[in-house]
């Protein structure tokens, strides 16, 4: 019954924009963030540590706003996807 985040995200319709709506200054995460909490609080697992470096991808983002509030280091620049892009929930 444990479901991977990838399997969960398959259920959400997403018209991904070519332009990233969230930009992360990963050097802040890598050099002075004491918790790197986005790697576990993001419900879509958009933040991952790969080879001890923070990696962020916006493509799986479901626009929840968690990282906007969880990052207290000023690394996350957060906006909504451009008009006509991003997720559409059929149930919501």
């Amino acid at each position: 019954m444990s479901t991977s985040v990838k399997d969960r995200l398959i259920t959400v319709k997403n018209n991904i924009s070519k332009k990233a709506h969230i930009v992360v200054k990963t050097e802040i995460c890598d050099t002075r963030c004491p918790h790197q909490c986005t790697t576990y609080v993001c419900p879509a697992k958009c933040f991952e540590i790969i080879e001890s470096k923070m990696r962020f991808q916006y493509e799986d983002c479901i626009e929840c706003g968690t990282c906007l509030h969880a990052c207290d280091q000023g690394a996350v620049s957060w906006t909504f996807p451009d008009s006509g892009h991003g997720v559409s929930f059929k149930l919501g």
Partner: protein
Amino acid sequence: MQDSDKFDCIIVGGGVAGLSAAYVLAKANLKILLVERGDWTGAKNVSGGVLWGPTAFDIFPALLNDFSADCPYERVITNRRLSFMSETSATTFDFKTDNFYKKPYNGISVLRSRFDKWLGQQVEEAIAESDFAEDSLVATGILVDRLLLEDNKVVGIGAGEDTFSSDCVIIAEGVNSLLTRAVGLQTGFVEAELVGTGIKEVWQFDQDMLEAKFQLEGDKGMSNEFVGCTQGVEGGAFLYTNKDTISLGMVLGLAALREHKKAPYDLLDSFKQHPAIRPILKHGKMVEYSAHVVPVGDIRLVPKKLYMSGAMVVGDAAGLLLNTGKAIEGMNMAMESGRQAAYTVIDAKKRQDYSESFLKSYQERLAETFVLKDMIRFQGAVKFIHNPAMFDRYPLFVNTILERAFTVDGKPKKKMTEILPEIIKEQNLSYWELLSTAVKGGLNL
């Protein structure tokens, strides 16, 4: 831009707050523009979600109709359950009454993509019947990226290269309130401790099976909240019955999640493995995952000023939410704030006064409704519920008492007067702590 293009009011956001405001304004014959970034009103919207109380029915009387098909809401909540969980056990209070099956209903379960789409249709119908059938509109698929300011007065909105002007703007953009923050009504950075992260899975079942599982009759439904299932993280879980689906999820304090180093989906996975939940999901299919930040009901999230010259803030953007431990009220508060902002616009138009000093009356109106009255009155409940013991030690205590009391093991039995002190000692609780918690609970909830 010509003056004839100017709207009386632009509403940013097609959630329940913005749609309530737009409906009231269209009914009052004002020229309005509602702008929603999703492909339809509801496409981006997520909630638990039970909509409590009469506000929705009051604003949208068509909700009182008897729907044979295409009902905009899911079920009428007549069964309330509250469960206290430990890792292995669950203790549930179960309340059921047909007294909640009288219109306007006490609570209805909703799936926002469907519900808000229907509200949007109501707004469009109201527009079609108004004098501005050709001029007013609900515009979807458009992201408002800025408010237009002139001399510290909001005079319209911008969306990419397009601009639209209006006498005032109702900001109903939701909890990720970028516009509210940009104009300085909300602080530039909102602390994690003032918000939670909600995550949810919708599970689909054969409708007869779902009704049998939860002993549901007709369109009656059940709502169940859970505490003690979050591995000590501030928050809880919920299970709401919809027509042929259930909404199963959690709301977790974001600062607590950060501190406990827990992933929300891992907590949800372990909740789904609990013996009280696992059998419910049998024969079901997970059909949609969603997540959204929510206000946690702390008054510090509510901007001191909900208005400025030419603009007002409503709903989640204004941080409006009440959590008394008895119900989590967000959508009804959003709708009431949308309605009060709309009333203020109607008055402002009569006086042709959209100044800050007049729009202040929106906040004064809101202070007279249950929205701000309850939020202020129940701030003690917010603190009470945030006591870390609520999320592990107290639910464990309740379950241990019952497990001992119900155990039949062939040994001579202990009386309750022996069982209780034994557990209190084992779990490092004190009579004083339990008594003071009970008294605080009584005073604050």
